[in-house]
């Protein structure tokens, strides 16, 4: 659905321009990432299956017993060294490929953001809290190797939305070779909202919250499915919120962004019909994750749904896949990833207040790249999909009703 869009406001999400060579550098990185994550990942697995596992079995009389043992044997296989190098450098090159175009337009990004905020055509809002402490798990390392992370400010006295731009333009390069997204909308938000509409046609959430929303890519899609909902996005980092807000105003999306820690929000009890997040918990310490799930239970209305997207817990995937996913914990500056995936999800959700018989876990196909009939069949529970998360074809979601 299209709301009125103020054409006088420049959209921060489209104003950065790349030169011919910069554009092609970005395209190169997109293709490189696809090769690494799909083609070379298969080469690495084949090497494990046909060389490493048989060699270990012959020597020790048994297969490696878990992800850690697989890692031990893979660590100095040439294929693992080369694959890791490719993956690591491709990650850095993603951010580098957009750094110069963004740097050139830094002033324009700030000015356009401030203008969108002031004009406020969509009626959304931005509430910043400069006193909010940035948690250690965000500030210690540059998460995803993104230089400056989410929270760095370069012009703190102004409408500094630059790291939001870095994340927005960088993630476009990031997923440029994979079919996740439509129109710069996040694949997860689009998939979850369309899934819920089909599965629970009676469920019409009036107030929705997206936690750890960053620049809002996966917040926006909820308005496409639930246009009358009051939509909120929270994050601890101001620059990404400023960017999300400026973009939302320019695109006519009424979203309320606020700078808050999801562990302890200022929302009242029993407030939201739907709480969601995407790619969020693996960046938090396990202690913080537990606090957030409790907080979700507190601010959820009775009858409301909490449904988060994350990677599946390690007890739901095989040893090799766990070894493969643990890579991010070691090298992508996401040290909490492994501990998060080792959580007993059901038990921890119960400890957070959710009743055992009201827990939910869905594997939701990616909406934009799935045949609509197949998507609907999965949503209605007529068909189940067990594809790996790796190709981005299916999003693992979990949570529960209050």
């Amino acid at each position, binding site marked *: 659905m299209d709301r009125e869009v103020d054409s006088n406001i420049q959209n921060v999400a489209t104003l950065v321009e790349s030169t011919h*060579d910069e554009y092609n550098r970005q395209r190169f990185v997109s293709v490189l990432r696809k090769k690494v994550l799909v083609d070379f990942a298969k080469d690495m697995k084949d090497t494990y299956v046909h060389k490493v596992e048989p060699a270990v079995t012959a020597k020790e009389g048994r297969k490696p017993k878990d992800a850690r043992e697989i890692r031990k044997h893979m660590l100095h296989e040439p294929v693992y060294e080369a694959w890791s190098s490719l993956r690591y450098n491709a990650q850095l090159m993603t951010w580098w490929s957009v*750094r110069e175009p963004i740097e050139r337009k830094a002033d324009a990004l700030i000015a356009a953001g401030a203008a969108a*905020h002031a004009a406020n055509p969509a009626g959304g809002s931005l509430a*910043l809290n400069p006193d909010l402490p940035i948690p250690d798990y965000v500030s210690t390392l*540059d998460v995803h190797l993104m*230089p400056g*992370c989410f929270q760095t*400010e370069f*012009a*703190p006295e102004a409408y500094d939305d630059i790291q939001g731009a870095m994340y927005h333009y960088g993630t476009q390069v990031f997923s440029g070779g994979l079919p996740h997204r439509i129109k710069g909308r996040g694949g997860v938000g689009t998939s979850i909202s369309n899934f819920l509409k089909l599965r629970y046609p009676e469920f019409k959430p009036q107030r929705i919250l997206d936690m750890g929303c960053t620049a809002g890519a996966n917040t926006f899609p909820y308005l496409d499915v639930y246009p009358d909902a009051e939509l909120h996005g929270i994050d601890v980092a101001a620059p990404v919120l400023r960017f999300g807000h400026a973009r939302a105003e320019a695109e006519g999306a009424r979203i309320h962004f606020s700078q808050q820690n999801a562990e302890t929000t200022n929302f009242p009890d029993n407030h939201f019909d739907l709480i969601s997040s995407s790619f969020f918990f693996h960046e938090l310490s396990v202690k913080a994750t537990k606090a957030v799930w409790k907080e979700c239970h507190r601010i959820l209305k009775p009858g409301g749904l909490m449904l988060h997207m994350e990677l599946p817990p390690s007890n739901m995937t095989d040893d090799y896949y766990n070894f493969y996913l643990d890579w991010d914990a070691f090298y992508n500056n996401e040290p909490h990833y492994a501990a998060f995936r080792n959580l007993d999800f059901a038990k921890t959700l119960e400890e957070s207040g959710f009743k055992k018989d009201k827990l939910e876990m869905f594997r939701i196909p990616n909406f934009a790249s799935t045949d609509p009939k197949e998507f609907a069949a999965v949503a209605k529970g007529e068909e189940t999909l067990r594809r790996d998360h790796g190709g981005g074809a299916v999003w693992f979601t979990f949570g529960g009703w209050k």
Partner: protein
Amino acid sequence: MSERRDVKLPIHSKGKRASFYRSEGTDQLFSIVMMLTQELSVAYDRIETLERVLDKKGILARREVESHRPGPEEETERTARRDAFIGRVFQIIHEEAESYAAEQPKEASRKAKGAKREKVSP
């Protein structure tokens, strides 16, 4: 708005650089090769763009391209481009050097800048 701030974005990601190879220097070399591959791909893209544009305009001057020799002014321009190109390919070397250079005087400069970098929200 005419305000100019001259924002400089960091290249380095906070945290230890990952190492995958046991022999020293191989990680750096790998990184260099990747940057080089990217630049090569970009250069090819540029050539292809050029050829297509020329083709569209009906000026397929392949012999002229072959015999072209740059004059002094053009050579200056090319030198600057090659300079930036090499800098990009060997970025990792600069990055490491920069991180050492940044380590020592940082405390002092951070203190000096401290007041200015205080977060203020609009």
